């Protein structure tokens, strides 16, 4: 028998601290598998956010930086500009990317920075105990929208993939989910494509991954996966929003 599935080399042996059924662990592995398959671990520099994945620098087996909340794209911008032949990725949650870090992500995309953004959308602030995020769905109860998010009060959930795909500098923008094995595999293909877009120097790339936070959703891990399907995907359609071809 031969091994067909194992821990990628681009992850360390450290046990992750995520809650049972949390999607962060899956997404980490997908990024690492792509690094392995492209043989770029030693050329990759990752920037992790403030959020539940703040400790991602302990899990990725490559050079890593930890950013201030929302600022990862600015940090990655400078590294990539100074070291253009390295692979740069940021790993960011929805609070990190779509709220406090909105300026940094929009401008990194507008400038066409040749970095790859892994955007983990779990509709709320996981780390701080499940507060409302810009991505919280209408009607969704969080600790700071205790009566459910209302458009009149809290506005509408933000569609980051759509928003960023309108920037000329964006070369690859895709939204995927990790709610079942097929979607997990699609997510991996998207991440790989994003890294390849970076390799070709085509511009900014981002994969928005619809993810589960079973803990703050108050659901079992399996029901969390179902919740992505039933509630998130209808509002946040999956697919590629921008694919810039080579000239």
């Amino acid at each position, binding site marked *: 028998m031969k*091994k067909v599935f194992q821990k990628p080399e681009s992850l360390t042996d450290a046990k*992750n601290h995520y809650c*049972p059924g949390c999607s962060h*662990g899956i997404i980490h592995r997908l990024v690492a598998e792509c690094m392995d398959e492209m043989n770029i671990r030693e050329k990759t520099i990752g920037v992790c956010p403030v959020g539940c994945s703040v400790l991602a620098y302990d899990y990725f087996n490559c050079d890593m930086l930890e950013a201030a909340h929302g600022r990862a794209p600015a940090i990655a911008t400078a590294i990539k500009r100074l070291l253009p032949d390295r692979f740069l990725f940021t790993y960011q949650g929805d609070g990190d990317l779509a709220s406090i870090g909105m300026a940094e992500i929009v401008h990194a995309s507008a400038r066409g920075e040749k970095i790859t953004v892994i955007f983990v959308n779990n509709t709320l602030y996981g780390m701080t105990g499940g507060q409302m995020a810009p991505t919280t769905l209408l009607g969704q109860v969080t600790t700071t929208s205790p009566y459910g998010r209302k458009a009149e009060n809290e506005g509408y959930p933000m569609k980051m993939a759509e928003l960023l795909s309108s920037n000329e500098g964006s070369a690859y923008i895709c939204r995927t989910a990790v709610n079942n094995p097929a979607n997990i595999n699609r997510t991996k293909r998207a991440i790989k494509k994003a890294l390849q877009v970076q390799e070709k120097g085509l511009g900014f790339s981002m994969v928005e991954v619809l993810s589960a936070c079973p803990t703050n959703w108050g659901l079992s891990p399996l029901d969390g996966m179902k919740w992505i399907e039933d509630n998130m995907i209808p509002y946040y359609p999956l697919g590629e929003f921008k694919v810039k071809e080579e000239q």
Partner: protein
Amino acid sequence: MAKGRVKFFTDRCKACGLCIEFCPQDVLGFDEHTINTLGYHPIKDLKPELCTGCAICGVVCPDLVIEVERE
């Protein structure tokens, strides 16, 4: 003989049960007789003979608990 074989790093398991749910062959279940260092009943191959080595369990596992081998 099963076509596939699963190996577990049981101390990493948080008993989220996603692998159990998504395994198309119903190979997996919780090991009710064991408590791992994280305090969970880890997963176990209750019906190893049915494993095809499809690796879906590994794909959905957030914690790198599972290694899969195939013929």
